[in-house]
């Protein structure tokens, strides 16, 4: 109530006029639910998308942040919303991993949600404190195997991308090291910069600047090909550990039962947004690659979601990790 009032006041102050809505779909303002707090990486993607898709469909797209329980609360809200195309969900890789991470998930991502399309993919990078003895991925693996009781790796919380990437790495080299959980990437990076913790795997969005400044070491990136922003850094396969290709992807979904024409209109608007130079520019700054026209479709996202659930569930189950 208060929030709405304040929002209204501010929009007056800033002279932001609400966009006029058209008669057909979308007849009303479209809400994209971001199941994480404002200001986070998923929120940033959502806000860029809301602006561009709003332009494409000539209506106002607003973001509603429903954070909590690693994205489960917000996703559950959308799964139960009216399937009329006015409530959408922007989620990330967590949608696929929540299936294995939560024993009591209040929704089934494949049964209760309708895919619209993939949005983008942010690669991860393996980084270590500046004075860490190993300098290449091979050396890191040797070092970790010999001293698995001493080495520590930071993660930004259970079920987060950095945690999953660490699990994936350890299952690939069949060695377990001590995880050090943090509340978010910021504090984890703080301790990595300060040399308190040995290594971590994090989105390039957070690591690129520190890598370039020489404050941390980098071993490899988890993308298929080298990144334009870090051309000198090898991929995992090049560095000697093929098969680890992972990234934090974002996807747009709608409640199950949303009419086909609306889904098609939304997918078209998404594709249009992903061709917007401003969006591409900002994604590039984040180290994210925008989904291609073929990926930003309901079918492609459905296949992607199935593949990701199949990929992560055994890894998470093997690590016996649960978020609830």
């Amino acid at each position: 109530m208060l929030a709405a009032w304040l929002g209204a006041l501010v929009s007056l102050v800033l002279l932001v006029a609400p966009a006029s809505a058209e008669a057909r779909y979308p007849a009303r303002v479209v809400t994209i639910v971001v199941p994480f707090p404002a200001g986070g990486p998923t929120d940033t993607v959502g806000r860029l998308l809301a602006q561009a898709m709003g332009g494409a469909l000539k209506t106002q797209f607003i973001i509603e942040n429903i954070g909590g329980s690693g994205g489960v609360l917000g996703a559950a809200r959308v799964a139960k919303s009216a399937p009329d195309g006015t409530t959408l969900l922007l989620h990330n890789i967590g949608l696929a991993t929540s299936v294995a991470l939560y024993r009591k998930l209040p929704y089934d991502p494949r049964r209760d949600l309708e895919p619209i399309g993939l949005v983008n993919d942010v690669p991860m990078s393996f980084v270590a404190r500046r004075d860490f003895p190993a300098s290449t991925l091979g050396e890191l693996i040797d070092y970790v195997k010999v001293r698995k009781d001493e080495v520590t790796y930071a993660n930004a919380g259970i079920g987060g991308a950095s945690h999953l990437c660490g699990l994936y790495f350890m299952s690939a080299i069949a060695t377990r090291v001590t995880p050090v959980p943090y509340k978010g990437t910021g504090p984890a990076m703080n301790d990595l910069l300060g040399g308190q913790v040995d290594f971590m795997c994090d989105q390039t969005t957070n690591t690129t600047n520190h890598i370039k400044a020489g404050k941390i070491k980098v071993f490899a990136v988890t993308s298929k090909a080298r990144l334009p922003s870090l051309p000198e850094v090898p991929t995992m396969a090049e560095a000697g550990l093929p098969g680890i290709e992972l990234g934090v992807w974002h996807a747009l979904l709608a409640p199950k039962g949303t009419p086909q024409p609306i889904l098609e209109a939304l997918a078209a608007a998404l594709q249009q947004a992903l061709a917007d130079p401003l969006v591409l520019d900002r994604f590039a700054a984040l180290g994210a690659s925008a989904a291609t026209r073929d990926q930003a479709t309901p079918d492609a996202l459905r296949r992607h979601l199935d593949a990701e659930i199949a990929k992560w569930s055994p890894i998470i189950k093997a690590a016996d990790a649960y978020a609830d």
Partner: protein
Amino acid sequence: MELLGDLATGFAAAFTAANLLYCFVGVLLGTLIGVLPGLGPNATIAMLLPFTFTLEPLSALIMLAGIYYGAQYGGSTTAILIKVPGEASSVVTALDGYQMARQGRAGVALATAAIGSFAAGSFATLLVAVLGPLLADVALAFGPADYCSLILLGLVASVVLAQGSLLKAFGMIVLGLLLGLVGSDVDTGVERFTFGIPKLAEGIPVAVAAMGLFGLGEIVHNLRDEHAREPIARRISGLLPSRADLARIVGPVTRGTLIGSALGVLPGGGSILASFAAYSLEKKLATDEDAFGKGAIEGVAAPEAANNAGAQTSFIPMLTLGLPSNSVMALMLGAMIIHGIVPGPSVMVEQPTLFYGLVASMWIGNLMLVVLNLPLVGLWVRLLSIPYHHLFPVIVALCCIGAYSLRNNVFDIYLMAAFGFLGTLLVALRCEPAPLLLGFILGPMLEEYLRRALILSRGDPTVFVTRPISAVLLALAAIGLIAVVLPSVRKLREPA
């Protein structure tokens, strides 16, 4: 003299008509939300983020920053007038500020808070510009073990906040620590003390506990008195501090500024520690320790200076390293990313105008806040002349709206009511809620750092004494504890 040139560039960038306007809008909004309990800078900045899309990056950051430190000014207003601290940082201000208000010196307390904040803000802003990168490196040297010892030192210091029995103060701190454990375990995600209530899974919001313990507890306490039909303050003496008052606050403001500036740099709660570290120090230095808690002007000046200095220097890790020191800074980083600026150490080098422009705007904003707040003092004080039976329903309503707006959650209102009941009970038992609240705020942080320090040391507890920073802090805590316990032990023995 490169710095002067950089600062000149910064002021030039901040002194455009548009940026001055955004700075003003920011501090005005900040003051407003600071006055409204519950609604904090976090929620406000989150709501405003989309509006800043269309602005220049510098203008956006200037406005968002203004909201943040503006809220530090506004938060003390309700703490002083009606003992409702809207923010964790103004909890301490409520102790002596509210007593001053009851004595008719609300105007003096409010003006002292504004003047102290301005002096501290000006100094801390300069510090950000001159020593920002250097201080950021110092902050990085702090490891989990060091934070853990710092928080322990803070807990020892918080014993000083209580006036009565030492044993009760310790009891309150421990109860606070336990309440802080409610919620999901950091490492495993297991829920603790939630009784299966999902709304408790993320813990109890600090503002809910503070409004319940202080705000509602005080209302019940007042209503039990026969004065309930009268205003909080019957006579109002002087709106502005006298020359003697000003002379008394110079020392506290200076010390508060230094403590706040130093602790504010530390990410993860440094600035929360600052306000009551400053209060504890003043109480220990004071010739008349008993005056504290009964309306000592030093007890308002020092913590207000400390929390505003801390608010400014907490920008240092964000601006120089791209690391958020609290959730508001995390939102500001998000704002930078949305504007295409990738946060990190290179921002200062590549975007000097942004860095120095923001720093310059922080000084301008602080000046605006004083100009904005001093004339408001008279208006606020007049509120206190409203008969209490008209005023208290308004306070209750404001607290309810505040509690609800935190997470759009009715459950939080019930939770606040429960804390109100606890607060009333504590007053009846002559236990003070302030140490409880500080234990509650620091408890989760203590646990997080303790566990992380022990994971990193592979379970070896000697890490707390072998790391130099930690060892010094622990030694200080031990000295503090002895200094607090010895006199009261002696007092116990004397009659025997």
